[in-house]
């Protein structure tokens, strides 16, 4: 039987209470659903002096539509399972929904939250890849201020994000996109229970003309999510050139031989996922 280490449990119902408590402890662990956090506690990977449960903060359990800026804000406390019914009808939201619906199983998605999936920084997390592809921002709050950081810059390295002491992730915001085709692909390594590669892509195509093309990738092969630069192509007939550029991008990413596979294996997996995604978003 796995038992977590000793800690204090604090339940907060308001942001003010949260900020006070976050500053009071030397190593507070903030949880909303806590599915991964509790597992890490059980395995004693982390030993916080306090677990702060923010699931009761209603201000973080909201999905706001800013009609003026045409932006969506997803609060950290929103359960992944609810995203499908909550998110509005646009291409960016479609990609977010696609990624969220592949997290674990229903019992994990019904407890796991947006904040947890974004904050953890596990290379296999789903939302960060989709959010990086659509150009989303992490909205970070502290007692003094609120700042926005592109999700693509939110991670320092796997399991390490840019949050400073006293800061918490309030949620994620992104601009709505219209008329895009979206694709979300990932490759699971069953015996290691990890995702080798994850790719999110979206493209706006009119006739044969590419108006916009975006891609992001993550997974154990490359660690934290990265934007893949495939701009500069104007026609769907350039698909072969785009794939060549994807190979160049892959070759420039730092990869290592490790327990998840050799560099060659990782590149094969990622290139296959990228090609499938490109065919899907540019195809007929």
């Amino acid at each position, binding site marked *: 039987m796995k*038992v*977590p280490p000793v800690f204090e*449990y604090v339940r907060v119902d308001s942001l003010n209470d949260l900020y006070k408590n976050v500053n009071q402890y030397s190593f507070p662990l903030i949880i909303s659903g806590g599915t991964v956090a*509790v597992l890490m506690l059980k395995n004693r990977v982390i030993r916080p002096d306090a677990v702060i449960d923010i699931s009761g903060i209603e201000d973080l359990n909201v999905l706001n539509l800013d009609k003026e800026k045409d932006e969506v804000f997803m609060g950290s406390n929103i359960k992944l399972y609810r995203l499908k019914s909550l998110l509005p009808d646009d291409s960016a939201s479609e990609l977010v929904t696609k990624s969220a619906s592949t997290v674990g*199983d*229903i*019992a*994990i998605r*019904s*407890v796991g939250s947006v904040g947890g999936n974004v904050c953890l920084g596990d290379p296999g997390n789903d939302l960060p890849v989709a959010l990086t592809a659509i150009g989303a921002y992490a909205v970070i709050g502290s007692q003094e201020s609120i700042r926005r950081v592109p999700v693509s810059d939110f991670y320092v390295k796997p399991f390490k994000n840019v949050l400073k002491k006293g800061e918490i992730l309030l949620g994620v915001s992104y601009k709505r996109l219209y008329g895009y085709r979206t694709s979300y692909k990932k490759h699971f390594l069953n015996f290691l229970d990890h995702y080798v590669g994850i790719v999110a892509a979206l493209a706006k195509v009119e006739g044969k003309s590419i108006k916009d093309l975006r891609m992001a990738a993550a997974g154990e092969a490359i660690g934290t999510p990265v934007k893949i630069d495939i701009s500069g192509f104007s026609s769907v007939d350039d698909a072969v050139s785009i794939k060549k550029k994807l190979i160049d991008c892959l070759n420039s990413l730092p990869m290592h031989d490790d327990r998840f596979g050799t560099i060659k294996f990782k590149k094969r997996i990622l290139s296959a996922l990228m090609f499938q995604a490109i065919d899907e978003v540019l195809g007929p």
Partner: protein
Amino acid sequence: MKVKLNINGKDYESEIEPRMLLVDFIRDVAGLKGTHVGCETGSCGACMVLLDGMPAKSCLMLAAQAQGKKIVTIEGLSAGGKLNSVQRSLSERKALQCGFCAAGFSIMGTWILENEREIDYEKVKTDLAGVVCRCSGYERVIDSIVEAAKNERKN
């Protein structure tokens, strides 16, 4: 810390350590042994319960987190000792062998019947992704839930 959890409609109040897991509270404090401790990593679903009507893995939650929520365990599915339609169907088709996964399949099956609009083989198979059975091979389990859904619709 003192917690009060509502399990199967009954309140259980106890002084616990904050690090106590929900599954341990259910088994050791409430004495409801139908919820099992399996893989302890959230993969097998043997510890599945309904939390405010949604399936949740109680080995991945602290007992303290479940305060103020309505918890239903496998025991809570059979009101007055009468099996619900999913449990009855699983039993009639002899879908379970050792029964260690019974909580997972019964809870998920019940949730599927109450929440999914169109229930067919593929839908049930996808929804059961978080429950592992090492002896039955899943076919009879899936068939049982599909049949229970058909019977519910008829009635």
